[in-house]
């Protein structure tokens, strides 16, 4: 088929294809999504390797900083790190290590990167999870009300607030809150050293430390969700099935709850998941400001070095998290939207 006809195309529209998977749809869909996620993951892995090997500087020097080291020790260290091997060999070792869950050893902490990452994952999940949940609740609630009463005072105030919060660098908001609440809330960290070890006290302690970081992260994220929810509900506002619902004699809030919101929720929910990367960006900034011992802070700490294995590990984990969220978004969309779920 060398002579391509001008303008001749298969009418296969990818968007439309979403709507009508046929045959053994569910399995096929799932496999397709997983496949593309795995492909993305593979690309991330390769990029992670290349990117962090382009960084100038001898890792061995970073590792031995501040210590008198003999040339023999340096050579031995090089061999242990594998930085003296050819690139392809390093790549093979890297892949092999990944498969075994070995992400190398941190230059700065002198500990396995995988351990560091697992240790820091919990706090980040706690922060990001709490903030996202809060943001979803607030964002959707305000978004729905703003759209439903478009151009009302409520809409203007809440949309205006959201826009302003959205326009703020999160780290700056963090700094401001830090100054404003100095003394009322702790200025950083995740728990006090002298909190009694019982579960109740520890939980309260962590919750107390969580307030400011969570507030900061929530502020920007909720604003985003609000704007998305508002505009997708506005898009549904003129839908004919709403007229049908009204004609049936439904109360206004029922029209909204039963008909408008479930439809408007679809794009919003997808966006909530797809915007997860943005939340993680926020987490890096917020964790840095509040010294929240999570992955974001680890990334920041690894920057001053730079601690390449840690940076690379954090990069992989964060990217994998976003990919996972994308898969979840697709699955959830399928659950929520019967049009996609078609058998």
């Amino acid at each position, binding site marked *: 088929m060398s*002579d*391509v*006809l*001008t*303008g*001749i195309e*298969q*009418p*296969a529209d990818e968007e439309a*294809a979403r*709507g*009508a*998977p*046929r*045959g053994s749809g569910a399995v*096929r869909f799932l496999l397709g999504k997983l496949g593309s996620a795995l492909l993305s993951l593979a690309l991330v892995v390769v990029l992670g390797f290349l990117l962090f090997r382009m960084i100038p500087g001898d890792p061995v020097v970073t590792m031995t900083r501040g210590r008198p080291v003999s040339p023999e020790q340096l050579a031995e260290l090089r061999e242990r790190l594998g930085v003296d091997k050819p690139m392809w060999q390093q790549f093979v070792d890297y892949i092999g290590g990944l498969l075994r869950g070995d992400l190398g050893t941190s230059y700065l902490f002198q500990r396995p990167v995988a351990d560091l990452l697992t240790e820091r994952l919990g706090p980040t999940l706690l922060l990001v999870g709490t903030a996202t949940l809060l943001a979803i609740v607030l964002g959707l609630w305000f978004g729905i009300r703003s759209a439903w009463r478009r151009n009302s005072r409520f809409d203007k105030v809440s949309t205006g607030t959201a826009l302003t919060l959205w326009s703020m660098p999160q780290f700056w908001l963090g700094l401001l809150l830090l100054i404003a609440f100095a003394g009322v809330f702790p200025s950083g960290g995740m728990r006090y050293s002298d909190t009694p070890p019982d579960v109740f006290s520890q939980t309260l302690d962590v919750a107390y430390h969580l307030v400011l970081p969570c507030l900061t992260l929530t502020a920007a994220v909720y604003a985003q969700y609000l704007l998305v929810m508002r505009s997708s509900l506005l898009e549904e506002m003129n*839908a*004919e*099935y709403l*007229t*049908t*619902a*009204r*004609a*049936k*004699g*439904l*109360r206004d809030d029922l029209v909204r709850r*039963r*008909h408008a919101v*479930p*439809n408007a929720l*679809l794009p919003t929910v997808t966006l909530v998941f797809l915007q997860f990367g943005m939340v993680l960006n926020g987490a890096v900034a917020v964790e840095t400001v509040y010294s929240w011992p999570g992955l974001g802070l680890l990334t920041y700490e690894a920057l001053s070095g730079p601690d390449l294995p840690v940076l690379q590990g954090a990069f992989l984990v964060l990217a994998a998290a976003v990919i996972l969220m994308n898969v979840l978004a697709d699955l959830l969309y399928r659950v*929520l*939207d*019967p*049009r996609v779920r*078609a058998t």
Partner: protein
Amino acid sequence: MTENPGTDGAVLLELRELSVRYRAARDELPAVRGVNLRLGAGETLGLAGESGCGKSTLAMSVLRLLPRSARVDGQVLLDGEDVAAMRWGRLRAVRWASASVVFQGAMHALNPVRKVYDQIAEPILLHDSDQRPDEPPAVRHRVHELLDQVELPAGKAEAFPHELSGGQKQRVMIAMALACDPRLVIADEPTTALDVIVQAQVLELMSRLVAEHHIGLIMISHDLSVLASTCQHIAVMYDGEIVERAPSEQLMRAPQHAHSKALAAAFPTIGDPASRFAPATSNPLPEQPSERPVGEPVLRTEELRVSFRARGGRTVRAVDGVDLEVGENEIVALVGQSGSGKTTLARTLLGLQRAESGRVLFRGTPLPTSTSGLRDYRRQVQLVLQDPTSALNPRHSVYEAVAEGPRIHGLTTDEIGRVTRALEAAELRPAERFMSALPHELSGGQKQRVVIAGALALEPAVLVADEPVASLDASVRGEILALLLRLRIELGLSALVITHDLGLAWNIADRVAVMYRGELVEVGTVEDVLLDPRHEYTRSLLAAVPGGTHRAEPANGLRH
């Protein structure tokens, strides 16, 4: 029983001096002006009119469903109670229980994420105080009963709207409308988006149900024949006013108002010699040549097959072994239901779609495959699309739209002259007046003329017109069809007109080809095929044409 209210003598709906205005940016646009209307219980009334005449606004005002920008004056009395004066709670109680609505596009009027059952049960649970949600069996029973009434299996209750066909969706809408046993149903263009055959079925169903349940019906349509087949009376609306109201038969036979006449003429009766080669037009048509020269057909297909690969690897054959000819100076109508493969055939003829096997021959030469060859070919065969509004780039002026073809083909010599000629050939005169206009400043008919002019600017030999009048108002329809006839005489243009409308074929075509599931089931002269159909499918197509009371028998006697 014509002018009297229903059998029990009660007035179901009365509109008194009803006016509706929409607040626009600067001024108010009147949509309905001082309409008076009465409808007795069990009566059926058709409301006819072209788009923008205010008929939908009128219907929506009955249940106060107009957008906030609407200002309503006058009274709407539903069972003697003024809807405008109702408290909010009372209005909600009246909605659906007293009057329900069958909306225009069932596809959009059903909530896409809720099951059919939920949507039908919703008003039942809402309005019948004895049907509480804790009595699901009763509700379920009622829903199944309703589905049964609209001839849908009970299993469809668990379906989502997208899993239903267009006709099924419209049936669900009807079932939903009947859910609370209303005394009035307002049906707003209930069959417009449907296929001819399905349309006939739905109309029949509605007529039956309305009669059985003694329901008052207001049906809105632009198609007089649809109304005539369902309603006792027809009211014609024009520019916000009711210009004529008469029993259906009378209105179809002898319309009084000029606008009613135009509407009536738009849907010719097949077999009526008066409308053969005579679409409704204000300019008289020249005599059509009775004998067509026979010779090498301009455009011919041989065993043409086109298929698509659907998702999941399945192959769908849209065109299956089609042999079709369009002769010199001939108009051929290709008729069939939607999904029969007509449009795919048209696209293949233009080289916009690759054929799987078979050939397309233009004056005996196969369709070229090279880029430049195809471009040259397209100077000869041109396309006119269904919806002129979307067929014109909203950013391009008329001049740019018409000059687009010549520019692509490098015909820069005397561009203005070429554009002027094309516009005038498409009866946009004087051409200068239109050149700088943007599409949105033109009426639907004018836009379609611009599209035709754009094709004519290349001076083609054949025009492939895909449903050229389907989206146009009835009064414009005739004008465009007349234009095609005139072009044939003046420019010797051949045409392949793709349509679902058999009346259109009767209006202008020399020959007709009936397409069914990718195959041509019957080809012949218009008279032969339409008046003496051989194939089962052609017969069902003809039977589905809503002929109302005025439908002529396909009798041999008409062929004098």
